[in-house]
């Protein structure tokens, strides 16, 4: 579009316009709008795709952690009666009759198994109570209270009824409470679980600790080689860079397998130690299938993510800074610590954050080489997804982990900028 003003003599008060007589301001705004629209149009396919197949699924998972339709759908009459229940003594015959009806209906609609499992996650032992009673309920006659307590004595416990009442709402917080080792007691107060069932808080702690160790270890290992790569002439540094990039491109499973081969008791490293005479054949050390094996393998796997940002920052530090410091009388090492290292801080920050973010969500390596004490939070999420099928708890654990990752990612984005992510 031709945007030249009509004539040079146009007075200041007159509105500038294009050749076809439109006000220039309007025409410019329109082109601007078209351009913006075009840019959005280019991004739209991927944004839609990611929203549908990634963001929406994650919301779906988060919703799983609070939704609880099973009890409300399958024990509606019981819940209605229990609404007026004081929660202190056993409920009346009315509640027992309603429960008997609900259980019979649930057995008919084949939902009884899932209902029993759901209640069992909250109070273990309830599975057999529910399924067992449901099997007998058809032959039961009033009064149901005696008949049900006779069938399964747990119906005489206040706890059983309070569990049912507590799981009544369709939106619940028990999954998140369970994820931080807490639960409701009979009185309806939140309290810590029994000592032997407290696993998640310490697991979160261990996950953070292991990720921190991996981050610090890769910083200490990555700093010298990043410095070497940044200082060498390009000819050599390009060659050495391949040694950093090859692990980056090698399959995670291959690298994990290699660590098993290297570190297991009959493995290469132990063989070398015995051969060197450092210790006897019987003294072979268990280096893998425990927490330290996981840390070693994860450090090697994540090290390139530390080296690359460090390298790209070190590349930009001009050597004249160091020369200036030395000419002002600083010793070479003083200059190094007080001038060079502080200048690498952006790289240290970027690399550490990235390694830490990637480490706390690690699953494959801990699962394969972690043994008992090297498991991380992701492993337990996978366990609840695939083995125990307690999807609500898996989603709650995932929600907490995701919250942590999102905060760190936001920090990374505002400190480093996601567009500066380096991939070799």
């Amino acid at each position, binding site marked *: 579009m031709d945007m030249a003003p009509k004539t040079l003599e146009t007075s200041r008060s007159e509105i500038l316009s294009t050749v076809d007589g439109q006000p220039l301001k309007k025409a410019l705004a329109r082109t601007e709008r078209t351009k*913006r629209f075009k*840019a*959005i*149009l*280019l*991004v*739209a*396919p991927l*944004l839609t*795709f*990611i929203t549908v*197949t*990634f963001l*929406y699924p*994650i919301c*779906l*998972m988060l919703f799983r952690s609070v939704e609880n339709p099973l009890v409300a759908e399958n024990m509606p009459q019981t819940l209605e009666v229990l609404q007026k229940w004081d929660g202190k003594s056993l409920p009346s015959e009315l509640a027992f009759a309603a429960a008997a009806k609900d259980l019979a209906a649930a057995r008919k609609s084949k939902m009884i198994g899932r209902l029993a499992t759901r209640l069992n996650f909250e109070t273990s032992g309830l599975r057999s109570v529910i399924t067992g009673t449901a099997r007998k309920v058809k032959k039961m006659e009033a009064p149901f209270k005696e008949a049900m307590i006779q069938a399964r004595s747990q119906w005489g416990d206040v706890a059983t009824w309070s569990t049912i009442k507590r799981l009544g709402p369709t939106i619940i917080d028990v999954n998140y409470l369970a994820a931080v080792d807490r639960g409701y007691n009979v009185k309806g107060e939140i309290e810590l679980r029994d000592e032997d069932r407290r696993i998640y808080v310490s697991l979160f702690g261990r996950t953070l600790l292991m990720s921190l160790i991996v981050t610090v270890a890769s910083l200490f290992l*990555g700093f010298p*080689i990043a410095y*070497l790569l940044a*200082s060498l*002439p390009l000819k050599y540094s*390009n060659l*050495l860079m391949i*040694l*950093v990039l090859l692990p980056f*491109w090698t*399959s995670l*499973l291959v*690298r*994990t*397998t*290699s*660590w*098993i*081969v*290297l570190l297991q008791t009959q*493995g*290469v490293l132990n063989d070398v130690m015995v051969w060197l005479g450092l210790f006897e054949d019987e003294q072979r050390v268990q280096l893998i299938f425990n927490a330290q094996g996981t840390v070693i393998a994860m450090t*090697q796997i994540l090290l390139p993510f530390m080296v690359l940002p460090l390298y790209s920052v070190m590349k930009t530090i001009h*050597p004249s800074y*160091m020369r200036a410091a030395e000419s002002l009388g600083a010793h*070479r090492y003083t200059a190094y610590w007080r001038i060079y290292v502080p200048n690498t801080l952006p790289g240290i920050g970027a690399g550490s954050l990235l390694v830490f973010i*990637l480490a*706390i969500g690690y*699953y*494959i390596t801990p699962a394969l080489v972690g043994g008992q004490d090297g498991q991380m939070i992701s492993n337990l999420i*996978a366990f609840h*997804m695939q083995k125990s099928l307690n*999807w609500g708890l*898996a989603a709650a654990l*995932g929600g907490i*982990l*995701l919250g942590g990752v999102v905060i760190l990612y936001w920090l990374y*984005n505002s400190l480093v900028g*996601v*567009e500066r*992510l380096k*991939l*070799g």
Partner: protein
Amino acid sequence: MSNISLPKHAGLVEKCWHYAFVLICSVVFLFLIAPILVIIPLSFNAEPYFTFNESMLAFDSNAYSTRWYEDFWSTEIWRQSIVNSFIIAFWSTLMAVTLGTLAALGLSRSEMPCKGLVMGLLISPMIVPLVITAAGIFFFYASVGDFIPLTGTYLGVIIAHTVLGTPFVVITVTATLSGFDNSLTRAGAMCGADPTRVFFKVVLPLILPGVISGALFAFVTSFDEVVVVLFIASVEQQTIPRQMWAGIREQISPTILAVATILVCISILLLTTVELLRRRAERLRGMLPG
């Protein structure tokens, strides 16, 4: 760039520091590369062990064999997983490259609103722990299962791998576009080419190195992915990583080392391609002499 070499007048302390530094660097490089290299000779072990025996160290030719490679090739399930891995990686790469390149083109325009937020969202599949992504996709596929069956289908795995691959394409192509001279597209338009023609004749050839390395990253991501496959695929979509996973967990056999060696060769091939592309791009931009 500071010079790393030791000055002639260096004192004893400086010399010690220098050699200590070289030693530390060598150890770290060894730490990085040894685990990858050690499995290559071991995969030719004639015995079903995971360590070097005396005859191997003596380079006795009887101690080496290709039996694990033959075992790999003659096992139906391994052959099937190789085919599956290539099919899934090919289609998800194609989708990731198309979507990712378009998005990168839009993101690098100055008119794009909310650039930081959109970029952050598009990169997030790379940052979110795989278990969470896999669980989310699992629930999603289950909820739409009545309309389109995605759980246990090739399409389902391909879509999930596309999600995981796109961030790499977006990052590499955006990086290439950051040095792109926009007057070239205007020049193309002035010569009478329509936008599509300008894209294919002017823009694409210039950003091709970025697109190709993004594609290779997306390919490797899919080729190496196991968590999503574990959550949503059925036996039919058995991939190499899935099969290796099962192998390491259940009956560890040296066949895995043979597979691992093959995978290392593939990654060397891919790395070489990316490095050559990167150097070509740098040379074209005048960053490297010759």
